[in-house]
């Protein structure tokens, strides 16, 4: 177990090669899955606990769920993209590579938990969510490191990795958007475990960017305008 954890932590190239060759990957995949579930659940617990323990437990369940659903939905798209762009990776190898990449990301999230905890203690809601988003971004870089090492260098890697990132963004974003709230706004007295569906997250992102520029459109207006 420690040996495999060491490979996940410090030897992404070796992990990628094991996946690519599909050699003894089952133990590595099991360790990666366990790491992913535990680390992201702990991250969710700390993030949600900035509101209360009930929200913390809900987020501890929802965050690993987001990862697992997103992985399951991204894998077919990644397989199609890789095959179309001429990389002959097998589905099994790709799924293992993805799982290991995300488990490495969750390890980075786990490592940066003290930062989140400190922010939760001293900062307000918006700052905490910004810190959490920043940590997720940093962990994404760690995941990308594994993914890139899984493919032999070729100019086609540039569009491939770009498309991987795009698919990951739209799939994970929508999954997370559907399972929100993860923290819950402080102004709300009663935070539900799951919110009712409210359009797609890409529209919400657009509205958020407009709000950041000082242009405020309410959700109702956006829905009426087809957003």
């Amino acid at each position, binding site marked *: 177990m420690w040996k495999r954890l060491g490979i996940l932590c*410090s030897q992404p190239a070796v992990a990628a090669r094991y996946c690519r060759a599909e050699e003894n990957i089952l133990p590595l995949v099991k360790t990666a899955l366990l790491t992913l579930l535990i680390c992201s659940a702990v991250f969710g617990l700390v993030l949600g606990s900035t509101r209360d323990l009930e929200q913390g437990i809900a987020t501890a369940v929802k965050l690993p769920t987001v990862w697992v659903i997103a992985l399951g939905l991204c894998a077919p798209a990644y397989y*199609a993209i890789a*095959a179309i762009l001429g990389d002959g990776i097998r589905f099994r190898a790709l799924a293992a590579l993805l799982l290991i990449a995300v488990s490495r990301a969750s390890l980075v999230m786990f490592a940066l938990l003290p930062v989140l905890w400190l922010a939760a203690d001293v900062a307000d809601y918006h700052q905490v969510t910004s810190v959490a988003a920043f940590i997720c971004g940093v962990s994404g870089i760690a995941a990308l490191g594994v993914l890139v090492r899984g493919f*032999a260098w070729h100019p086609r890697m540039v569009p491939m990795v770009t498309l991987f990132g795009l698919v990951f963004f739209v799939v994970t974003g929508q999954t997370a958007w*559907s399972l929100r709230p993860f923290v819950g706004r402080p102004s709300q007295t009663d935070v539900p475990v799951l919110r009712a569906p409210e359009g797609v997250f890409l529209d919400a992102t657009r509205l958020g960017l407009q709000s950041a520029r000082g242009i405020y459109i309410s959700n109702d207006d956006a829905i009426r305008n087809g957003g």
Partner: protein
Amino acid sequence: MQATSPPPIFLPGSSISIPMPAPSPAPDSTIGSEGLATMLLVSAQDDRRVHQGRLLWGLAGLTMLGGLPPLALRLVGQLPSTTGNVLADLFQPLRLPIAAALTLTFALPGLLVLLSMLEGQPRPNAVTQAISRAYFRLGLLAFGITPALTLYALTGASAGWIQGTTLLTYFGAGGFALAHFLRELCDAMQQRTPAIVALILGWGGFVCVLSVYFVIKLVFV
């Protein structure tokens, strides 16, 4: 590649360290055996099973794209559970694969006739290979995108948004497949004059128009 022993892991709060045994040598090459999709894509054999595999993947991928997101919309109540016409409900997932097949094959005999007039005979079987590869590419991309689209359909996207994105996926993947098809057709020519290349490119433009026509006729009925 030489396997190196990783550093030991130190347990927090204790002086005990767990020595890390060296992992078994990792495979030298990053390229393992090829996946099924790539095998089907790169195979140059004029094998019936290869063609069947490509056509089945194409059919399955496009049927999924045409069938799963609307089914998800029905499950969440964004669309009525049935149109009242059983035949139309059964036919609906098959609209996209039929549109794609018609788009690719409807105008092809004309192209071959015109090519032969310009003395541009393609290599034997190259056209069959190019057609089955194009259908396969289209279906494979559709297969990859469908799970994400289904997620969006299940989690709050409107019916119009899903239909628009489905068509965007279809035309995007179709454009990609068509570009590769035209390139393969050009490569398969025994002689390639500017007139032949211009004819193939013009035919590609016509196929784009034709694909829009078939989608309007078959999907928006």
